[in-house]
């Protein structure tokens, strides 16, 4: 090994976020200027998001889940306390980040000319890890 790095994933690319959510089974809406989230009563909330999973795809008492792009370009999740309590919690957000990072890594590797050698999913006590291998030309 000649170098090693650990990185905290920052979600900045809308396309990759949407692709990741799609892989998780959601049909995410994209709103360039943001759209209001809707609560479980059908009430329009004051929070706006640029990528939205509508509540119809979630639990019957769920609110919309949104991802709002901040001034720094980073997407941040907007989740109600109720939805966090029924499983759309940090663990679920971790999966969103994991799907995003897998796609981001593959996209970067392709654009930079690295050769993809394979994917392996490793089961750990804390959840599955994704291992991607590449070689440099």
């Amino acid at each position: 090994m000649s170098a090693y790095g650990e990185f905290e994933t920052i979600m900045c690319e809308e396309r990759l976020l949407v692709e990741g959510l799609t892989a998780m089974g959601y049909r995410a809406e994209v709103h360039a200027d943001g759209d209001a989230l809707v609560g479980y009563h059908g009430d329009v909330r004051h929070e706006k998001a640029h990528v939205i999973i509508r509540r119809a795809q979630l639990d019957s008492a769920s609110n919309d889940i949104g991802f709002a792009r901040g001034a720094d370009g980073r997407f941040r999740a907007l989740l109600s306390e109720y939805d966090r309590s029924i499983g759309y919690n940090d663990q679920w957000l971790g999966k969103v980040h994991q799907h995003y990072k897998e796609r981001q890594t593959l996209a970067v590797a392709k654009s930079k000319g690295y050769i993809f050698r394979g994917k392996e999913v490793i089961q750990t006590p804390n959840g599955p890890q994704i291992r991607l291998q590449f070689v440099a030309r």
Partner: protein
Amino acid sequence: MQQKTITVVIDQNGNSSVDLEGFAGQGCDKVLKDFQGDDRARVQRKKAAFYTKTGDSRDQHLKSGQ
């Protein structure tokens, strides 16, 4: 010639580690940067192979935010 391999492990929280093998010299930095993308660096470490060309065998630990 040793093959230059890159192994990316993405944990259950979506955070990643990037392991480079077979690289030497400044090429490591570019490859790490490619795979870092927009992400925040938590740990970066260069190992012996990196220093082959510079003659410095020290490990280097960097903990930095962006």
